[in-house]
């Protein structure tokens, strides 16, 4: 099994130089820590930043510079600021190469549910998740393979309210890397060390097709 650090590192491994990337809150944010400094990947933040850098050291915190999770960040040389309509124009207009989000569920048809846990959620908060899921060129999800009580999060159809339809291309979990292939469903690309296909399948709520 992979731990959270290894999951983030595994995602980072697949991001090539030159991509514009938006990282969601949680494990996705930590993907940035695993992109080597000499590989130029430009991070986008919904609140109007391109070229976002890591968190500052405590005595260099700039109150005017926060990420989408409202945590202090830094700006790399070459970075820029812009307003919210331009920021989401970049997202919706297909200019962002990759978005990495967490999720409650991903379905074999690429549907994603990551913003509300029931139809009657008290005050659900969607933020930019629907815009990112619908607009980015690629959507990858990084999440645990199952819930804390063992229910599969990779499913045939999402039970929770959808964030977007047919949007996810790839899922990185603590057990495996799985592609979502239109017309085929979940295709297993990689299994975490020490696990078998049968073990991963038993914790998955839909058929895992062999990589071929």
């Amino acid at each position: 099994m992979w731990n959270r650090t290894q999951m983030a590192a595994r995602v980072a491994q697949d991001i090539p130089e030159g991509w514009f990337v938006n990282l969601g809150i949680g494990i996705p944010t930590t993907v940035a820590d695993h992109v080597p400094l000499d590989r130029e990947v430009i991070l986008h933040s919904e609140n109007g930043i391109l070229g976002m850098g890591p968190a500052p050291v405590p005595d260099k915190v700039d109150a005017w510079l926060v990420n989408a999770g409202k945590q202090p960040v830094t700006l790399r040389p070459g970075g820029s600021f812009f307003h919210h309509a331009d920021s989401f124009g970049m997202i919706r207009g297909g200019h962002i190469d990759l978005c990495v989000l967490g999720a409650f569920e991903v379905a074999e048809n690429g549907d994603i549910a990551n913003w509300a846990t029931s139809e009657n959620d008290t005050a659900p908060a969607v933020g930019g998740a629907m815009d990112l899921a619908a607009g980015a060129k690629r959507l990858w999800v990084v999440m645990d393979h199952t819930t804390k009580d063992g229910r599969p999060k990779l499913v045939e159809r999402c039970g929770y309210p959808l964030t977007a339809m047919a949007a996810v291309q790839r899922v990185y979990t603590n057990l495996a890397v799985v592609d979502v292939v239109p017309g085929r469903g979940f295709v297993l690309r990689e299994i975490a060390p020490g696990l078998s296909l049968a073990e991963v399948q038993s914790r998955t709520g839909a058929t895992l097709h062999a990589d071929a």
Partner: protein
Amino acid sequence: MIDKIVQSIAEALQGVQDGATVLMGGFGAVGQPDELIEGLIEQGAKDLTVVANNAGAGKVGLAKLMEAGRVRKIICSFPRSAGSSVFEELYRAGRIELEIVPQGTLAERMRAAGAGIPAFYTPTGAGTKLAQGKEIREFNGRPHVMEHALKGDLALVEAWEGDRWGNLTYRESGRNFNPVMAMAADLTVAQVHHIRELGGIAPDAVHTPGIFVKRVVRVHRGAPWV
């Protein structure tokens, strides 16, 4: 001589009516015009519809205005954040209406209002419960949701500097929703940290041209905002 600079928060908020739709800039605490928002409590307008990305935090600014019972409805993308307990209590008690809008759709609805576009189609939200009851139309084989422009009676924005013509520049990620809201309301009021002489802001550096701004008021904030 055109002079949009006013001397007090009270003067900046003169004439705000009950029932107004108020656009409030900011993303979390950054670029949020807290002094103007708190000025609304003093000013007294009630039955307000507030448009903001978040639903306030702690006991200041928007949270304080809501706690004072002045807000009938909030239109936002992310009401649930650290310290948003005032909103959550009011919402649970059924004392405030909530309209959830995806963040980019929220920004674009105001941009459209400012640009004279009454409605537009977006792929965001198609097939989700936030599209329920809305017109769906297919473009390039993909469903899109029709969204309406969102116009304010009043916009409260925060900028780093401004001049007497109402030209504004923002600071770093404090820009966020502010320029979009500034163009989407009948009365746009800007609180600024610095007043510059006319011509003191380089023309190439103006983010919001004064055409969108009616009143400018200086605020004096200490650390960490200086």
